[in-house]
C-alpha cells in the first residue's frame, strides 16, 4: 500500500508518508474542509487527482496525487468526499479502495460500465443494461415511495426514493444526474476565451456566478488582474444575482406552504429587478456580461442611478414582504422545526452557502477567500444556528439586505477606467477560482494549453449540498419534503453538469 499514493508536485506534504493519506488540519486541529476533489490527465495521459482543502487561509490548499493502481479512498475519514470519489470512479475509472459505496453516480443503467469519458473519447457508446440497487430499508410497516424523475409540476428531474413508516420518512435516497450533459467533457479542447458561454449554461439561475468563476480561473491561470471598474461591475452583477435568487426563494417557500399572495408579491419584486437588469446590462439573467479579462458591458451614469433606485426600492419592498412572511403564524408553524440539519452533519458533509450558514457553519467565500472587488468592501455575514426551514428562509432574507447594500455601495463608488483587458494565452497554465454563488461556494479549476482548455472542473455548491439534504428530511413527515427541498433550493442542472 505504501507506494500507491505519491506526493503531489505542488505540495510535497505529509500525504506521502504512509498508506493513510493525512488530511491537512485547519485551525483548532479539526480536519480541513474538503472543497473539491477531481481528476485530470497529465501529458503522459496519467490520471492526476487533486484534493482542494480549505485550511482557513485565504488561499486554498491543493494536494496532487498521481494515480498508478488503486487509490485509497478518503471517504471513510471525510464523508464529504463520497460523491467526488464516485464521480472520479465514473469519469476516470480510478479504483478506490475502501470506498463504502461505488455505485455509478453520473451515469445511469444505460451507460456501459467500462467507458470512462474523461479518460478516452469512445467512437461509439453502446446501450447497456445495468442494475442500480437502491438501499433497502427493512422492517414491518416500512414502505418505499418512489418520486420522480417526472414530477407533477414543472421542475427539474430528480429521483427520490423514500422509505417511510406511515408518514414519517426513515430514509431518503437520491438518484440524480438525469440532466448530466457532460459539460466538463465539452470544455475539453474548446477555446479558453469563448468557453464562458458553456460555463453560463451550467445552472441557469446562477449563470453570472458560473461565468465569473470561470473567468477568474482563466485570469488566475494567465496572471491577469481585471481593471477595477470591471471588478466592481462583476460585484454588482454577483450581488444582483444573489438578491434576485433570494427574493425568488422566499416567494417559493411561501408558495410551498400555500401562502400564495406572498409568492405573487415576491415574483413582482423579482421581476422589477430582472427588468432593471435588462435595461442596464441588456440581459435579464446577466448572460454574456462577464468575459475573461473583464466585462463586456459598461454602465453609464444614468444606468447606475436607475439600477440603484430599482435595487433600493426592491430591497425596501422585500423587507416589508419578508416581515409579512415571517410574522404570519400559520407560516411560522410550517417553517419552524421542519427539516433540521444539524451543524455536525453539515460540517462532516462540508455543506456550503446559505444552507451551511443557517445551521451555524460560518463560511462565506467572499469574506474567507476574497476575490475581485470584495477585497475592498466591508460586509457582515449573517449566521443562524437553528438549521430548520425558518433559519434557511431568514438567512436568505438577511443576505438579501446585505446584497442590496453592497450593490448600492459599489455603484456609488464605481471606479473609472476601462472594463476589459485582453488576455494572452501561451503555454501551459492552470488556475483556480472560487466565487460565492447564491447557493454557496462555486469553484472552477482550469488547465489551459495554448489557448485551449484541457480540463475544466466545476465544483458546484449543489453537488456538495445534495448529499446533506436526506439528513434534514429523515424524521420529518413526507408531506413536508417539498418544503425542505425548496428551503435547500439546490440546482439539479448545476449538480448534474
Amino acid at each position, binding site marked *: 500500500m505504501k507506494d500507491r499514493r505519491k506526493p503531489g508536485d505542488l505540495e510535497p506534504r505529509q500525504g506521502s508518508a504512509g498508506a493513510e493519506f493525512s488530511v491537512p488540519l485547519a485551525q483548532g486541529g479539526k480536519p480541513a474542509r474538503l472543497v473539491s476533489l477531481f481528476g485530470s490527465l497529465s501529458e503522459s495521459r496519467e490520471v492526476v487527482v487533486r484534493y482542494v482543502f480549505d485550511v482557513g487561509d485565504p488561499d486554498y490548499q491543493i494536494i496532487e496525487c498521481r494515480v498508478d493502481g488503486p487509490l485509497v479512498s478518503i471517504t471513510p475519514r471525510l464523508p464529504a468526499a463520497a460523491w467526488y470519489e464516485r464521480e472520479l470512479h465514473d469519469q476516470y475509472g480510478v479504483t478506490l479502495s475502501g470506498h463504502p459505496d461505488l455505485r455509478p453516480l453520473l451515469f445511469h443503467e444505460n451507460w456501459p460500465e467500462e467507458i470512462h469519458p474523461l479518460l478516452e473519447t469512445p467512437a461509439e457508446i453502446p446501450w447497456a443494461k445495468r442494475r442500480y440497487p437502491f438501499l433497502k430499508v427493512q422492517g414491518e410497516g416500512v414502505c418505499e*415511495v*418512489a*418520486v420522480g424523475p417526472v*414530477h*407533477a*409540476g*414543472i421542475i427539474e428531474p430528480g429521483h427520490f426514493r423514500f422509505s417511510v413508516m406511515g*408518514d414519517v420518512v426513515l430514509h431518503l435516497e437520491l438518484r440524480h444526474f438525469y440532466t448530466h450533459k457532460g459539460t466538463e467533457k465539452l470544455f475539453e479542447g474548446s477555446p479558453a476565451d469563448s468557453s464562458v458561454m458553456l460555463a453560463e449554461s451550467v445552472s441557469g439561475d446562477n449563470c453570472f456566478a458560473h461565468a465569473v468563476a470561470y473567468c477568474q480561473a482563466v485570469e488566475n491561470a494567465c496572471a491577469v488582474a481585471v481593471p477595477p471598474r470591471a471588478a466592481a461591475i462583476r460585484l454588482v452583477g454577483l450581488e444582483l444575482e444573489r438578491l434576485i435568487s433570494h427574493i425568488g426563494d422566499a416567494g417559493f417557500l*411561501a408558495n*410551498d*406552504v*400555500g*401562502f*400564495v*399572495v406572498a*409568492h*405573487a*408579491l415576491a415574483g*413582482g419584486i423579482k421581476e422589477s429587478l430582472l427588468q432593471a437588469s435588462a435595461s442596464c446590462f441588456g440581459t435579464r439573467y446577466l448572460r454574456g456580461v462577464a468575459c475573461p479579462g473583464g466585462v463586456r458591458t459598461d454602465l453609464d451614469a444614468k444606468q447606475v442611478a436607475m439600477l440603484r433606485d430599482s435595487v433600493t426600492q426592491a430591497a425596501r419592498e422585500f423587507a416589508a414582504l419578508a416581515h409579512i412572511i415571517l410574522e*404570519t403564524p*400559520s*407560516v411560522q*408553524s*410550517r417553517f419552524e422545526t*421542519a427539516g433540521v440539519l444539524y451543524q455536525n452533519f453539515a460540517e462532516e458533509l462540508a455543506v456550503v452557502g446559505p444552507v451551511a450558514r443557517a445551521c451555524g457553519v460560518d463560511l462565506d467565500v467572499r469574506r474567507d477567500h476574497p476575490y475581485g472587488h470584495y477585497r475592498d468592501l466591508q460586509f457582515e455575514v449573517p449566521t443562524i444556528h437553528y438549521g430548520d426551514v425558518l433559519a434557511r428562509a431568514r438567512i436568505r432574507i438577511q443576505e438579501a439586505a446585505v446584497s442590496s447594500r453592497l450593490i448600492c455601495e459599489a455603484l456609488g463608488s464605481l471606479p473609472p477606467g476601462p472594463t476589459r483587458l485582453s488576455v494572452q494565452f501561451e503555454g501551459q497554465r492552470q488556475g483556480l477560482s472560487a466565487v460565492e454563488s447564491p447557493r454557496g461556494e462555486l469553484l472552477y479549476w482550469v488547465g489551459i494549453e495554448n489557448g485551449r482548455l484541457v480540463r475544466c472542473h466545476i465544483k458546484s455548491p449543489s453537488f456538495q449540498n445534495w448529499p446533506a439534504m436526506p439528513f434534514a428530511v429523515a424524521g420529518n*413527515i*413526507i*408531506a*413536508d*419534503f*417539498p418544503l425542505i427541498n425548496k428551503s435547500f433550493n439546490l440546482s439539479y442542472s448545476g449538480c448534474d453538469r
Partner: protein
Amino acid sequence: MTVLIGVVQALFLVLAAPLLKGIVGRLKARFQKRQGASIWRPYSDLLKLFRKDDLVPPTASWVFRAAPRIVFAVIVSAVAFIPVIQSSALVGHKGDFILFVYLLAIGRFFLMLGAMDGGSAFGGMGASRDALVSTLAEGPLLLAFVAVSIVAHSPTISGIVQWTLGQNFFDISAVHILAFTTLGIVALAEAGRMPVDNPATHLELTMIHEGMVLEFSGPSLALIEWANAIRLNVLLALLIALFAPWGMAAEITWGGLGLALGAYLVKLLVLAVFVAVIESSVAKLRMYLVPDFLGVATALSILAVIFTMIAKR
C-alpha cells in the same frame, strides 16, 4: 310548481358550481395582484376534458372507470336535499340530513377506491389522507346537523330552514353560532380547500384531493372536477340555507322568486369572498395538525349539542 322549482334549484346548484369555482379563483388572483383567468374558465376546462380521451392505466379494474361516475351521481343526488330559493327542497323526509352526510361520504369512498385502483403511489397516499380528513369531518358535520335539528324541532333540512325563516336574525342562539362555525370548518375540509388541502399545488407529496385525481384524465377527470365544484357549492348552499335563509320565497310568485335568487347570490358571493380571503391569508396546515383543526370543529359541535339542552331554543 314546488317540484318544478325544486328541479330548477337543484339544476342551479349543479350548473353554477363551476362558476363559483371561477369566481373564487378570480378573487384569489386579484388578491395576488394578478389579472386572473375568466370566471367562465372552469366551464371551458370541463368542455375541453369531456372532448378528450379517457386514459385508463393498464393495471386498473372497472372500479377506476366507475368511480368518477358514481362520485358525480352521488353528489348530484345530494343536491336534491338543499333548499335554495324556496324553503323546501326537491326531496325531503325524516332524517334526510343523515342521508345527506352519508351521500357525501359515499362519494369520497368511491373516489378513494378509484384513486387506489389507479395504481400510483400518490393515489394511495392521497386516499389515505382523505380517509383521515373525512373520518374526522364526519362527526362534527353530523353533530352540527343534530344540534340545529333539535333547536328547530324538525328532522328534515327543509323543516329546519322553514323554522329558521320564522325567526328574527338578531335572535340567533349560541347553538347556531357554534354549528355555523363547525359547518364552516367542515365545509373547507370536505371541499379540499385551504388550510386543509391546497387545490392549487403542484407538489405531489403534499396533495390530498389532487393526489387522488392525478391518474384520471378526460371525461373521468371532468366528472371528478365538476363533482368537487358541486361539493363546495352544495356545502356553501347548506350554510346559507341553515343559518341565513332569510329572503327565500315563502310563496311562489315571480317577484318573490327573483328576490330570493338575488338574496341567495349575494350571500353566496359573501361566502366566496370569505373562502378566497382565507385561502389567501393563511398557509396550509402541517399534515399532522389537520386532526387538531377538525378537533376544534368536533369540540364546537359537541358544545352545540350540549347547548341545545341548556338554552332550550
